[in-house]
């Protein structure tokens, strides 16, 4: 895996991810996107760290902040962006929108309800056991989600039945506006695994290489049939909980410091330069290329048609209700 995804490739992926989120942000700024938009700018290290470890047949179930996970799972960018822009060409024909992404071919789905991703991932893990494969399921949640009952119910069931489930907790330190340390008991999130006899570990998710190592270990554990794994990845959410969040609960100093010290792109870039694996010009070119690619993708998506109005009535049930 280290060969397929050397640091430079992960850096490239993170540049695409950031440019992707910026392309979404533009829709809010231009008034093209109504409703809420939850961006993961600053959390690219977690998603890019997951690249290269999963198979197409492994399932991933993500959250309200899921775009980068979708990219990491191999969901094609164009229908992904088109769904976020609520176009007919989107993954779900414009009926899901940014919170509800479904890409069954890539074994990827999301839910907009905090904590609800985990039992669904548990179901995929149960299915893998029924199917007799060594596929795994990845359920993603945040530091807010670990205080839902579903987190505990899922870990308990995964452990008693030794299911191949990997729970990734993106700990960006805030459950919307509330600091997670104020509302989360115990020594830490990863430590909660021990209560269920599960594998648990914490990594610095701003460091894409550490994240990749941690994720590979967690998936390896689950794939080997040794039961569930809980990986806590610490990171920073650079923007508010959603676009429109005034974010008054974090000081300017705190925001300045997280961007200066906790940006996974800068951390990776500095390391690449340090190791002599890339020069500054190469890194700038990679970043510019990602931006250009996303700009042209956004240009195409904007020209896509909206869903036909009659689609509002389709797909409620497989058969038409009376």
């Amino acid at each position, binding site marked *: 895996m280290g060969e397929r995804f050397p640091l430079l490739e992960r850096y490239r992926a993170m540049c695409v991810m950031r440019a992707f989120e910026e392309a979404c942000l533009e829709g809010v700024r231009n008034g093209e996107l109504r409703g809420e938009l939850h961006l993961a700018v600053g959390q690219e290290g977690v998603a890019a760290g997951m690249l290269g470890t999963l198979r197409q047949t492994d399932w991933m179930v993500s959250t309200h902040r899921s775009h980068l996970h979708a990219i990491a799972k191999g969901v094609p960018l164009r229908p992904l962006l088109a769904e976020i822009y609520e176009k007919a060409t989107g993954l779900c024909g414009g009926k899901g929108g940014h919170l509800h992404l479904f890409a*069954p071919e890539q074994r990827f789905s999301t839910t907009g309800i905090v904590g609800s991703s985990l039992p669904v991932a548990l179901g995929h893990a149960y*299915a893998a056991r029924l199917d007799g494969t060594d596929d795994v399921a990845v359920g993603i949640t945040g530091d807010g989600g670990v205080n839902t009952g579903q987190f505990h119910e899922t870990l308990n069931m995964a452990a008693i039945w030794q299911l191949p489930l990997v729970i990734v907790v993106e700990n960006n330190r805030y459950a919307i506006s509330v600091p997670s340390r104020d509302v989360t008991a115990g020594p830490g999130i990863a430590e909660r695994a021990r209560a269920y006899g599960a594998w648990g570990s914490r990594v610095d998710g701003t460091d894409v290489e550490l994240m990749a190592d941690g994720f590979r270990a967690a998936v390896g554990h689950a794939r080997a049939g040794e039961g569930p794994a809980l990986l806590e990845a610490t990171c920073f959410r650079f923007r508010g909980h959603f676009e429109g969040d005034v974010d008054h609960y974090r000081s300017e100093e705190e925001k300045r410091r997280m961007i200066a010290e906790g940006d996974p792109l800068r951390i990776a870039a500095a390391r690449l330069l340090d190791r002599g694996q890339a020069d500054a010009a190469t890194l700038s070119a990679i970043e510019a290329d990602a931006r250009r690619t996303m700009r042209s993708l956004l240009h195409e998506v904007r020209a896509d048609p909206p869903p036909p109005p009659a689609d509002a009535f389709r797909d409620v049930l497989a058969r038409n209700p*009376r």
Partner: protein
Amino acid sequence: MTEATPALARRDPNISQVIADTIRMEMERDPTIVFLGEDVGYSGGTFGASRGLHRRFGDWRVRDTPISEMGFTGLAVGLAMSGWRPLVEVMFVDFIGVCLEQIYNAIAKNRYMSGGRVRMPVTIRTAGGCIGVAAQHSQCLWGTLAHLPGLQVVVPSNPYDFRGLLAASLESDDPTIVIEHKDLYLRRASSFRVGAELPPHRFLVEIGRAAVVREGSDVTIATLSTMVERSLRVADRLAAERIEVEVVDLRSVCPLDHDTVARSVAKTSRLLVVDEDYRSFGLSGELVARVVEALGPSRVRATSRLANPDVPIPAALVLEREIIPDEDRIERAVRSLLDDRVPDA
């Protein structure tokens, strides 16, 4: 898998045996059905509706879960997206509040939200209705669940429908909640007035088709579950006075077969809805509205609703009897619908 199903040859089963036999038959037919719930495995179900299934199909297909309704209902969502057909038992429908999030935000919506790319063939069996167990173990809640788009809500009243509707639910690509009245589990098939005969072969009852279980020309009673038999007994009483009551067993709340009811009311011009569920914002008001919309107000002479008058179900039997429709109240409601016959005559 080719083992004969003594199930279907069982003589005079009770309803819980009919359910267990149906699940067994369907699980043998379709190896993708997986049954999950509290006490469904080793013990054979709190109401005995899964007896023998764990022994027959093993831990992985008949799973005793912890008391984690939200968790195992969500598990069913993942199973369904992975190509399996989960059957989930929520022991009492009153408990559905703890897992409603996965039911109404995922099971009911995933097909829609995904633009039809995801199927949700999930069946949820759950027990409803009054048997003297008070406010948290006696509700019907079919109106609450039918209010949520994306779900079928099925309420069988007799042995034939229990088998045919459950089999149809398990075969359906749509999520279906089957609400089983607790008062029926131990009733022998032969004791039912309608649907007592069970053919020894597999059959389906189409979901969304009401059944006219008694024909009559004066008043239509539209009802479901245990109220079907109560209404039939009232119809017998009134027949002695040459009042002919037509009784329609709705069989499902969603889809609601208002066409069959409207056809009946087109003949009788009087509609009484008898419902054990809460009255307001529910089945009875919805059905009256649809029938009036379908026929126009001039063709509906009178309507009435008899249902739980919007109070929680009390513990003491004498109090429970005050709020649940009984034969006397049904009879009075029918008579008052006919009051206008006098000036009209």
